[in-house]
């Protein structure tokens, strides 16, 4: 029985070819717009997630309070006995299979100075101490096959604690363009020394503090040495020298102008001096982002069990920007969906109303023959559904084709929070459930739109319908 209903519906769609085509086009346009936008946001979301997971890991374990108060004084929130904590995390039977990288990190702030050469310069820096091999492994995380992998360039070595990388902005500020052979780094305009203090004064102080001679010019070719000054946990001024082997652009200018990536041991030496070496955070990078909440719950349970005063934060909490971008794009998507849904709704209501009006006598005949009201309703609902299905299928096919074209065209763009342009990619099927949801939603809207005319058809009085010719 349902077969003949589908047959009649389909043949009527074909019979009213032009009308059906117009309506299906509206559905197709809706599917196309939503799927392409989904492809775009998927690409952005997955790209941002990948970038964040590569650099921050999924979860970070801090000493309680660090997340809210620690940024002002990272060194004061060191995790005691972190090696033991890490060991118990790594040995946990629940966590162990989820974890890809488990690594310590130390955040720090201080003053970075280059007092070599004629243009002595200094600037406050924000630094991260890491284990180079762990970081490199983290940077290779690519669950979504985005192809994003920006290795530390040139690479840092676990064995050489003195090596580090800095942001290109900081390199520029510290007059390291030439020694680091940075492109797009014009020489600084000759600045008049500010009245009062001599510009080289602070650097000279640092040099003195370090108790070292000041060599002229950069060090090894392709490298340069800077000094990093910070107060230790105990309050004493401390200095280490960093062998800058390269500069890497950072997404935000503030970060690019201040970023220093160094070996964990060097960071610890600067922050803790002769006292016990602690860390700011234990970083967990998981094999799969879907483990995130399970891993988080397990960590919290573990810390409660062992009475450890530690807190767990995920990368989305650490980077509010991530959530903001998602919310922004989600609201744009909602807007597009609303507009497209309305267009589809009106197009289908209009078409189905015309179809019902044209077939009133046919409806009367069918009813007289013994077709129930519900089947008349189903008859027209099926027609709306079919139009929705055709339109959605065409729209989806177009979206996939257009995405393939764009992906092959090599158009580049700079994503939010990125420093460099990357190829634009539309990942229409990257989140298949959502793509399916969009298609199902459109078919549902088309079906719902047919409901009104279909109900009208079903409610017709048989005699009145038969009199209508």
């Amino acid at each position, binding site marked *: *029985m349902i077969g*003949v209903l589908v*047959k009649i519906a389909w043949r009527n769609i074909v*019979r009213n070819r032009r009308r059906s085509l117009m309506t299906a086009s509206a559905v197709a346009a809706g599917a196309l717009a939503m799927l392409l936008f989904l492809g775009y946001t998927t690409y952005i979301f997955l790209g941002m997630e990948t970038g964040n997971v590569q650099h921050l890991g999924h979860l970070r374990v801090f000493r309680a309070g660090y997340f809210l108060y620690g940024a002002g004084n990272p060194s004061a929130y060191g995790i005691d006995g972190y090696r033991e904590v890490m060991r118990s995390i790594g040995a946990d039977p629940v966590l162990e299979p989820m974890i890809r990288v488990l690594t310590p990190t130390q955040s720090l702030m201080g003053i970075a100075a280059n007092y070599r050469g004629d243009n002595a310069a200094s600037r406050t820096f924000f630094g991260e101490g890491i284990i180079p091999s762990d970081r490199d492994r983290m940077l290779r995380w690519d669950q979504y096959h985005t192809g994003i992998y920006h290795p530390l360039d040139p690479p840092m070595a676990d064995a050489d604690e003195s090596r580090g990388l800095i942001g290109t902005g900081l390199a520029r500020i510290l007059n390291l363009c030439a020694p680091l052979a940075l492109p797009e780094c014009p020489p600084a305009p000759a600045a008049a020394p500010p009245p009062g203090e001599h510009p080289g004064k602070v650097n000279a102080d640092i040099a003195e503090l370090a108790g070292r001679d000041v060599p002229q010019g950069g060090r090894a070719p392709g490298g340069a040495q800077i000094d990093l000054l910070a107060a230790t946990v105990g309050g004493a001024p401390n200095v280490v020298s960093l062998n800058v082997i390269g500069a890497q652009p950072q997404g935000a200018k503030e970060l690019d102008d201040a970023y220093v990536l160094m070996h964990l041991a060097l960071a610890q030496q600067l922050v803790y001096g002769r006292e016990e070496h602690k860390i700011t955070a234990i970083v967990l990078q998981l094999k799969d982002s879907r483990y995130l909440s399970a891993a988080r719950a397990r960590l919290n349970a573990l810390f409660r069990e062992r009475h450890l005063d530690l807190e767990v934060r995920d990368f989305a909490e650490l980077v509010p920007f991530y959530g903001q971008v998602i919310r922004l794009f989600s609201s744009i998507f909602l807007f597009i969906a609303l507009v497209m849904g309305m267009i589809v709704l009106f197009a289908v209501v209009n078409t189905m109303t015309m179809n019902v009006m044209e077939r009133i006598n*046919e409806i009367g005949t069918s009813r007289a023959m*013994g077709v129930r009201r519900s089947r008349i309703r189903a008859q027209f609902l099926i027609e709306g559904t079919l139009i929705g299905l055709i339109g959605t299928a065409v729209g989806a096919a177009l979206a996939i084709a257009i995405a393939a074209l764009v992906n092959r065209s090599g158009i580049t763009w700079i994503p939010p929070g990125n420093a460099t342009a990357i190829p634009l990619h539309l990942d229409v099927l990257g989140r298949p459930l959502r793509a399916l949801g969009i298609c199902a939603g459109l078919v549902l809207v088309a079906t719902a739109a047919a409901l009104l005319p279909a109900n009208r058809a079903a409610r017709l009085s048989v005699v009145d319908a*038969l009199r209508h010719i």
Partner: protein
Amino acid sequence: MQLEAMPPVVRLTHVSRTYQAGALEVRALDDLTLEIPPGRFSVVIGASGSGKTTLLNLIGCIDAPSAGAVEVCQQKVAELDDDAVADFRARNIGFIFQTFSLIPVLSAYENVEYPLLLVGMPGPERRRRTLAMLEAVGLAAQAQRRPNELSGGQKQRVAIARALVKQPQLVLADEPTANLDSATGASIISLMRRVQADSHTTFIFATHDPQLMSHADEIFAIRDGALLEHRGSAS
């Protein structure tokens, strides 16, 4: 004949049907009481506006009386709900309309097959019955044609096949020849007469053409919604 002993296939008792046309009340049927015996070719005759279509609609269970009771195939129609009436029609009543009213997107074959789908007949039996019916109305060769590829006479033959294929107790034909030329109309009448005789189905045929009375076993003449005369042929 043993048919005579059987109860009437249609029984109307004091049936009225009024229409509200604006402020005006039109009494299309007025206190009509009649019985139609089974297996006959009955003709309802009357001038235009006399109430023939209204009467056939009530007998066909697609309309309800304003007053009185309608009993079809021993079933009190008022006792059935909407779906049950639809199912009742699907099983027991075939319609033939003046305007043919075939489903335009279905072929002749599919139009004839449709009523069998409604009663849930299994495929092979359905196919056999449909083909036999098309054969009986002389349209086996046109089975795959759509209605718009058929002449008026051919369309009405398809409609007759569609009404009869489920072997209903009752077939209602409301001026089935009005849209046909007289020669085609005559051939349709003789076809209906033939299939009626073969199947012993009760046929009720509404017309205002007195010529057709010669074909009838029973004649019900109505005027202004009231029964003027009933002439039954003594069997």
